[in-house]
């Protein structure tokens, strides 16, 4: 493999650039690589081996990482921030951060958890910034910052979901992420704790708080109150 390849940025002498990363991940699996570079890694490569390859900045490793964990990262980010037009940028940023921080991954076998953690960390930072940005913009305009258009076609569902997102947007970022992963994704509490880097007790506390805040507001909304859980169902996260 030539050092002048499109993936040459993985060599230590040059810091990866934006175009490099885009070029690395825009190839589809099995496609011939640009500039005569062939793919080095089989898709069956274990996570440990892939992590080692990433740490060694071996050509093709970033591409395989994106192929393997792109949908996973996308799912986590969408669950966390909703249908936001910034999702593609967030995915891209999450991978950039993953690759830059790969040296800090201690156990190579935990690559998936590392990718998920970085994705949620990226989503969390975005949620916090979005909140303060909206607050900042509201200084200049009395109108609400418009929500991104939903892709759903049904007006009934669209309105219900818009109101659901509106209430989710009022929750603190940490609580929102834990709540969304639990309720929308159905993720296990232990997995949420692992991905968000907090204890199981903290996850339970966050979900309970988010649940209380969410339904307190949703019960006042005529469109959402019919979805409110029964009191006895409110107790367990």
């Amino acid at each position, binding site marked *: 493999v030539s050092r002048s390849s499109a993936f040459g940025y993985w060599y230590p002498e040059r*810091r*990866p*650039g*934006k175009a490099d*990363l*885009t070029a690395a*991940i*825009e190839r589809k699996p099995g496609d011939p690589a640009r500039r005569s570079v062939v793919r080095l890694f089989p898709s069956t490569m274990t996570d440990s081996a892939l992590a080692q390859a990433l740490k060694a900045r071996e050509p093709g490793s970033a591409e395989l990482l*994106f192929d393997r964990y*792109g*949908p996973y990262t*996308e*799912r986590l980010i*969408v*669950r966390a921030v*909703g*249908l936001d037009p910034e*999702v*593609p*940028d967030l*995915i*891209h*940023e999450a*991978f*950039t*951060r993953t690759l*830059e921080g790969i040296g800090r991954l201690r156990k190579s076998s935990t690559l998936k958890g590392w990718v998920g953690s970085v994705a949620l960390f990226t989503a969390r930072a975005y949620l916090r910034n979005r909140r303060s940005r909206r607050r900042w913009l509201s*200084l*200049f305009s*009395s109108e609400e910052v418009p929500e991104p258009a*939903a*892709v*759903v*076609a*049904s*007006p*009934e*569902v669209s309105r*219900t*979901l818009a*109101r*659901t997102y509106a209430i989710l947007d009022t929750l603190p970022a940490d609580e929102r992420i834990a709540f969304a992963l639990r*309720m*929308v*994704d*159905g993720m296990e509490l232990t997995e949420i704790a692992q991905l968000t880097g907090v204890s199981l007790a903290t996850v339970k506390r966050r979900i309970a708080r988010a649940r209380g805040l969410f*339904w307190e507001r949703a019960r006042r*909304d*005529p*469109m*959402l109150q*019919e*979805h*409110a*859980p*029964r009191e006895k*169902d409110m107790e367990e996260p």
Partner: protein
Amino acid sequence: VNPSDRLWETLRDEQDRAREQARYLAGAKAANPTGRVEAGPRRTVWWGLVAIPVVAAVAVVTTFWRSRVAESLAFTAPDGQTGRIGAWIAASPEGPSPLTFSDGSLFLLSPGSRMRVTSTDADGARVVLERGQASASVVHRTTSHWVVDVGPFQVAVVGTRFDVSWDSNEEVFRLNLREGSVLVSGACIVEPRPVARGHRLRVSCKGASEELLETRGEDDGPDGVRPSPLAADATGARPATDDGVVNVPTGSSRGHAEASSRAIAPKVLPSGAWHSLVAAGRYREALELAERAGFDEQCRRAGGADLLELGDAARYAGTAKEAQLAYLAARSKLPGGGRSAYALGLLAFDRERDFGAAARWFEAYLAEQPDGNLRQEAAGRAMEAWQRAGGLDRARGAALEYLRQYPNGAQAPLARQVVNGP
């Protein structure tokens, strides 16, 4: 099925559908990163040193400016345009016209009325009713302060609901308090007069009379007809019947309450009249708007899409009967009934708990709308409604059909449960 589960399942399905349709991953590949990661701290330090005081200064100035100017209430004229201070607002001759404020306060102008908003601030506004009648619903806040100038009178308001009119020909001022209290002052009143809930005030400058009348009910007269001035003509017709009014003499009162009235004929509202209220989630007010103009008349003459929206407003406001009327009226005005059958199914399912009727409505929707975008929801609801109605054979048939068409749908787990039995 826990009702909240359906919400989360729907959210998950829509997110997954969006992930497929929006092709976020493809977008990520083509994304132009923000540069936040690659912009190292060495490059940003000096920017930060400059930016922090600049941002702080802008924030201080903006906060100050906002406290002085930007927090002033905005308002929307009946034509949907952003209101301008001092501009003449003429109510439509067709029906009540809403003037909405950004804090949620609402003035419904009766046909032919004229109003101006002369000033606004963070705590309220000053409006002038030049002519005609208005029904006001002012949102109460601790700092609220509103003034309504009506002819030579001023009505000071903190937060309340009331109807007010001014007949410039007869020089008669009328006020009907429905909630809260107001303070009325003006040329023909010796001293400011508080008016409390359930009372009406009528002042005639020509006749030098002042009457404070106490209504029997909260809103309604003895015949159940709301004595809102919106039920009377804007050009000075008498308000609705006062048969249910007890005359409470005041210092300068004389005579009895007026006894005659002439209700205006109900008129159809312009298309989309309640759209902004529904969009803002103010369903009860949207419904009131239609009711004041004659709900039955709206059902007869409004367009199908408007009626669906009116039905939604009534359903969310918790008035199932009106919702049903609006949806039924919409059925004959839309191709295949539009989504009216689905909405009627929701009404029967969620509000009336009549699951048999709900199932039939959902199936009617499936039959009427072969390409409808609510088919998946309708199919799932029909199955669940049959199950709850005890029609297990039909529930099983609906479940099999659901699984055939939507094996990964939100209701697929329930469908499998129905098919396989408990």
